[in-house]
């Protein structure tokens, strides 16, 4: 059941992704893997192990959402550093630098624009058999409790989709994902996701997908789940192949 993470509007009023370079490293799994190794050794200390940002370095994934840079610009930033900041120049070979760029590119681009391994048709079966459609919808088919997945591949990086499946509670802090159940003063009980809530009102979508707009003065008791309503054990339930295929299917969900 439930929430495969809130759909972050990936990228950019500026509307440009890091996909302009024709350098062969971009999108090449070996280059990305090599880049990942370099990243964890030299960059992760400041930018966080997954590029999510640290005390000294900005979040590379989030930053790219609003201020996307061309691959060449990232290459230059790695090479020359960024004057006036803690970002130092490096003495990496061209190839190594491009491997790093490939890794960062992969980290931030929408899954639908990447080469994703796996069998999307088999992934569709996995999606059905795992019961994803009970809570999630794709193009109007499925539940409304959990985030819509019609554009999940077009809006999120693959790594982020993977994380949402394997660790759904990580994204819980975003609006619209909290599992709640309430008992109203008139005795009615409702259960679902709080699309929004405050001390004064609650906007709840129930398991049937109907909205309930409530005043907190009408609520007698409320239970909030600290974890996502989405089961946290898909890492165990799915085989490696199933997860790969499911990701391939979801990566292909794009409205453009």
């Amino acid at each position: 059941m439930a929430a495969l993470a809130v759909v972050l509007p990936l990228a950019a009023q500026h509307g440009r992704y890091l996909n302009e370079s024709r350098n062969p490293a971009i999108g090449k799994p070996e280059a990305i893997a090599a880049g990942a190794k370099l990243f964890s050794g030299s960059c992760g200390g400041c930018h966080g192990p997954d590029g999510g940002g640290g005390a000294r370095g900005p979040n590379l994934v989030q930053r790219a959402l609003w201020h996307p840079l061309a691959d060449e610009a990232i290459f230059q930033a790695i090479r020359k550093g960024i004057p006036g900041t803690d970002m130092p120049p490096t003495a990496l070979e061209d190839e190594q630098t491009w491997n790093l760029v490939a890794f960062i590119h992969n980290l931030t681009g929408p899954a639908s624009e990447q080469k994703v391994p796996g069998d999307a048709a088999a992934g569709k079966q996995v999606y059905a058999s795992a019961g994803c459609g009970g809570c999630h919808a794709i193009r109007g088919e499925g539940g409304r409790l959990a985030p819509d997945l019609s554009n999940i591949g077009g809006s999120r990086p693959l790594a982020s989709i993977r994380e949402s499946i394997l660790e759904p509670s990580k994204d819980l802090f975003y609006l619209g994902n909290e599992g709640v159940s309430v008992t109203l003063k008139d005795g009615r009980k409702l259960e679902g996701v709080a699309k929004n809530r405050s001390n004064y009102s609650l906007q709840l979508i129930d398991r049937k997908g109907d909205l309930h707009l409530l005043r907190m003065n009408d609520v007698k008791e409320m239970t909030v789940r600290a974890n996502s309503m989405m089961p946290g054990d898909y890492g165990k339930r799915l085989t490696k192949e199933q997860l790969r295929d499911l990701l391939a299917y979801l990566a292909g969900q794009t409205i453009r």
Partner: protein
Amino acid sequence: MRNCFLIFACTAGLTAQVKYDAIVQGPRADWLTYAGNYQGWRYSPLTQITAQNARMLTPQWVYHVPDARGLRSSPLVYDGVLYITNTNSIYAVDARTGRQIWQWADPRAKRQGVNRGSAILGNRVYLTTADNYLVALDRRSGGVVFSKKFADEGKGTTSTSAPLIVKDKVIVGSAGGDSGMRGFIAALSAEDGRELWRTYTVPAKGEPGAESWGDLIEWGGGAAWLSGTYDPELNSLFWTTGNPWPDFAGATRKGDNLYTCSLLSLDLDTGKMKWHFQFTPHDTHDWDAQSWPVLLDTEINGRPRKVVLHANRNGFFYALDRVTGEFLRATKLIDNVTWAKGIDDKGRPMEIPGQDPTPEGNWVCPSVKGATNWMGQSYSPLTGLLYVITLEQCGRYNMSSQTPKPMSNFSGGGATEEGGQVIVRALDPKTGKRVWEYPMTGAGRMWTGTVSTAGGVLFTGDDDGHFVALDAKSGKNLWHFNMGELSTASPITYSVDGKQYVAIASATAVFAFGLFEPAEPVTTPAITVVK
């Protein structure tokens, strides 16, 4: 899985949803289409807020629309949820509290631009993106049902208007006429977005009407960038068209330039043009006809008529027979009109020579912004008056001698907007005469529309960023509120749980107002957090 889906299907069947008949009936508690009803009245039968108690209005909530600047969107409300659009995005907000329920945005859209609002039918809410996708979303979750492209932004077309839903069709228009494009109105299927018909507003070479153009006909403009109105009895759509291109340089397009600056009556089922009426033949002042074609049955010269009223940017206020398109009458909408002596008995302007733009600039009234514009007018059956935002302003029109190049931000010249005053005018549809006026201070920069109610109140924004309530009968000011920024959108009114609200988008936020009630202290219930 199978059972699960069966349950969903059953639930969906039981849940309330927006029916075409409800849109035909016009606003009640909800506000289901851009102009409130198909006739373009922006009139609500709600009576909680009256001319007597409007001074008790207070803000109820404010919703800041993410990343908004200069919002043009008029909200819709259904079942306690308010929908407001911005560029390539839409937000569902609790209409009682202003709290966001969901948001949807398409950051990969290839263009940015203004968006005037959404449409609703069944359980879906519809909007268009600036790069011409019709997007249908589930109204409860914001989930995408479909997203389908209907025009090529590579040919200069963009989309700004709220779609109009009639029966099973979503009617969309086209924008971009100031840079060269070919305007159209299209009907798309509400089910899946497929195209059902498309009617171009500028003929193709060789078609009837093409003789009213020159070589640039393929880029002639005639954009249809505002929604239209609909007469269920005649099954006719009424849609206005924009200026010919290049806007200010008419020498390259000798002739009337059909069907620009016109009102078109189209058959809903086929898109076939039943009639057209051109307000400004061979326009050279960028006087798009985008202003609401308001439908009503009234007496003209003592004879009952089905009319369409149209306050035009060119300075005149028209009444046409909406069955035949016959010209019935035109009166001056504003005082300062210098380009034409009047409108002749066929409906054609009696132009004063020498009013075209020139290389050194030519001073003409009204200004390029026009005597009125797309801001929502309203008609109140209670007072029998049509309320129009008018602008007394002149400007200098320049013509460029450059060779026109489409899709390069070239409009054949330019125009200034100098000084001027915004005045709300209440007009008598029977005679075209002014009944009252409400002059405003300001710099002539507002684009706010109106809404009128059965409580006898007319709401609008003024030219200084105030939201204003006027007595619909007399134009007397009843109440005002400083929103802190100019509004460029039209207000609506709705009711939730028996409380009437009036909502309007300012440049960056939606404000909702209602009658004052003492605050009710809120006791937070016991909240248990479970792992």
